[in-house]
């Protein structure tokens, strides 16, 4: 019970952090954290299939893609303002 409450609090906190932080890199890292916590929540809800998919696709692959996109944006910005 305590674990579930902590999990819900952490989920909400990481979601708010993802949406409100001005730094894109931080937002992506928070998004990955959110995905991993979400996978835990699915596992707690007895849905291990969705937990697996969420951890692998939601947190892993999407996170890698978003990090790549952020790196591209930074590079572009640096090239535009020398």
């Amino acid at each position, binding site marked *: 019970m305590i674990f579930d409450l902590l999990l819900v609090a952490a989920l909400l906190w990481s979601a708010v952090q993802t949406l409100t932080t001005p730094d894109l890199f931080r937002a992506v890292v928070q998004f990955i954290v959110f995905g991993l916590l979400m996978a835990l929540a699915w596992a707690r809800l007895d849905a*291990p*299939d969705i*937990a*697996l*998919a969420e951890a*692998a*696709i939601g947190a*892993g*692959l999407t996170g*890698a*893609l978003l990090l*790549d996109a952020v790196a*591209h944006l930074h590079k*572009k910005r640096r*090239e535009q303002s020398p």
Partner: protein
Amino acid sequence: MRTLLNVTVLFLASALGLVLGWLILDLPVAAVHLPEQVTALLEMSGVVHPVTAVLLNFRGYDTLLEIAVLLLALLGILALPRHVSDHQHRSPSANPVLQTLTRVLAPLMLLVAGYVLWAGAHRPGGAFQAGAVLAGAGVLLHLAGLLPAWATPGRTLRAGLAVGLLVFIAVAVALMAQGTLLQYPLGWAGALILMIEASLTLSLGLILAGFYLVLTDSRTRV
């Protein structure tokens, strides 16, 4: 002005949230009890795990459309006008520690993908999860500098991307003769599902890895 707008948006969003929550609480109880139906028919499905039975047998066309959508998304990415770098694209890191670790990890990830695929028949697992692990191995290999990005996929790669959907459609067409879409004959269901899932895993792994490996090569050059 700005604050007024923010407050309005906040108000509308919370109103929408409250209404949605209230509506969900107000929904009538479902008339058909699906879990019981699935359990009752599980023996006919060819697999023991209910989730795989639903995904690959009872509602197989959902999965068929899912793989079609993913393939379509990758085709869309490939169709975008891209600036493929003319010099051999170097991966961001050529760290020897990372490379050695990746060389050890990649075969293990392949093994895990195979296990997750096989486990799908009787416990949580299946094609999508196995494909995601394969894709993860691909991305890791690229990041370690061992796998070049896909500038233009060759013939073999294209065949691998399409094989999942093609096998699925071939099975569906072959079974059309008996009148129902994707209704596996009794006794054959397990083997057909394994065949479809194996090709789906390969295609999904390549497609999901492709999202990363194709996009990461298309650097806009100034």
